[in-house]
């Protein structure tokens, strides 16, 4: 296979990587709040951003994806924009936040996926800003010098103080252990999915180690080594902390670097589902296509028209002699036409059943 760099994608990826680095520099107040211990994570994250933007840009150039992307941009400049925006927000909460569409596929499957998704999202929300130096914590100077006062801890975002809490309080316990909570969620989710993948014959037949099992193993390794850090300093007086820190860093960086290439890319792709919903919603408003065979509505006319363009771009030409298209037929109509053609071929051959 000949490998060639996609210039457009490369440009996008470089621009986003440079913007990220600039935001790290200025967001951490010229590296004043940047934690050098996290430098390896930063490299991993910037590489992940580079890879994700590169792959996403290549992906958007494929004819079917480009068509959806173009239609999405049109909707931004549409007067129904706000109606679609309200729908988008609602759909985002239901289908991205709660992954509603997975629940009908199986309850335990939904629970497992929700726990993994929520745990990972929480971890991303905490670790990315920490790695970038956008969030840092300090002791309140007024309370730290007076041994009698209640010790307050301050959280800063982009160098601005956003809130403070008492050390030893419930909030402090929750905040300091937030990554542990996300680890537990991911571990439970991973175990539910591993059980499915190791016991269901359909999955066993079609899954691959690198595509389906390794991502679970990696998430488990990240979560366990992450919990190991807390376990080490809470219960083992820091024993094996270095080992835990290094193995955690290695697994996390592997995860970050792998996001653009493997299963984890679906996290980036998934919001396109919302675009597909809005596309259908807009299409219904514009009018439905009626199957010439069944006489019933079966899809939006915009979808069928766009598909005719996309299939031609991809080298398929379903245009019929009369200028219409085979794609004007509904799936049921297409099946019937095939069977009718078979019947016609039999009739032309004398009409008898052949064996």
């Amino acid at each position, binding site marked *: 296979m000949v490998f060639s760099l996609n210039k457009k994608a490369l440009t996008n990826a470089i621009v986003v990587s440079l913007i990220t680095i600039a935001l790290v520099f200025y967001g951490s107040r010229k590296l004043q709040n940047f934690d050098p211990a996290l430098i390896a994570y930063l490299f991993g994250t910037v590489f992940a951003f580079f890879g994700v933007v590169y792959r996403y840009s290549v*992906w958007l150039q494929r004819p079917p994806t480009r068509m959806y992307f173009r239609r999405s941009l049109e909707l931004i400049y549409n007067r129904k924009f706000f109606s679609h925006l309200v729908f988008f927000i609602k759909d985002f909460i239901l289908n991205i936040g709660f992954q509603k569409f997975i629940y*009908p596929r199986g309850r335990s499957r939904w629970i497992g996926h929700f726990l993994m998704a929520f745990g990972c999202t929480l971890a991303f929300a905490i670790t990315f800003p920490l790695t970038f130096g956008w969030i840092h914590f300090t002791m309140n100077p007024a309370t730290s010098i007076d041994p009698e006062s209640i010790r307050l801890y301050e959280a800063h975002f982009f160098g601005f103080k956003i809130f403070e809490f008492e050390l030893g309080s419930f909030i402090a316990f929750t905040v300091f252990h937030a990554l542990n909570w996300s680890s537990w969620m991911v571990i439970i989710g991973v175990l539910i999915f591993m059980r499915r993948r190791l016991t269901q014959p359909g999955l066993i037949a079609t899954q691959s180690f690198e595509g389906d099992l390794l991502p679970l193993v990696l998430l488990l390794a990240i979560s366990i080594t992450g919990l190991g850090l807390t376990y080490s300093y809470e219960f083992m007086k820091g024993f094996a902390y270095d080992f835990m820190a290094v193995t955690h860093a290695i697994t996390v960086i592997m995860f970050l670097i792998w996001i653009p290439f493997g299963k984890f890319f679906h996290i980036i*792709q998934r919001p396109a589902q919302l675009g597909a919903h809005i596309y259908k919603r807009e299409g219904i408003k514009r009018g439905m296509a009626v199957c010439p065979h069944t006489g019933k509505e079966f899809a939006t006319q915009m979808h069928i028209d766009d598909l005719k363009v996309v299939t031609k771009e991809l080298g398929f030409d*379903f*245009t019929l002699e009369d200028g219409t298209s*085979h794609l004007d037929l509904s799936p*049921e109509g297409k099946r019937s036409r*095939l*069977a009718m053609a*078979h019947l016609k071929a039999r009739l032309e051959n004398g009409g008898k059943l052949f064996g």
Partner: protein
Amino acid sequence: MPVTNYKTNQEFFVDMQRCIGCKACEMACAECETNGHESMIHVNYIDRAVTIQTTVQVCMHCDDPACANVCPADAISKDEFGVVHTANTARCIGCSNCVMACPFGVPKKNEAYDLMMKCNMCYDRTSAGKKPMCATVCPTQALYYGTREEMAMMRPNSSPVNNFIFGNEKVSTKVNIMMPKGATELRVD
């Protein structure tokens, strides 16, 4: 994919004139583990107003599958045996491009799952050297899975055809449709 025992000398043969509409294949299809126990096969009346003839449609597993080409999410793949697999559940965004682009009208969109699903030739069985569920239960052998030699012996007046003409497009498939002896293609419209 894991190591398989897929028998490359075995092929799928569909003979529409033999379909009696019993729907045994529909029930059997739901036993397929790779479908998540959803029936994927289609049994239709051809044209109910003029004939009681029914027809059966499995995925034809095209050489250059339109469904996979039009998928904006790269969710559909073809393996080394030519089996076109159902949508990858993690990737499919439920846009229905494949449902509308398939010239044979095969993929189904499960609205509740927001997912496209289709026949993948009972990959849990065929990858283990077994026949697809539908072909094992069809009482009239409208659906048959076996070798080309077996088929030639059983149906001397028929020819398996895997080239289909849809307007300006010629589609070649892994699955064969039985046609009168000597036919090489089926012109659909």
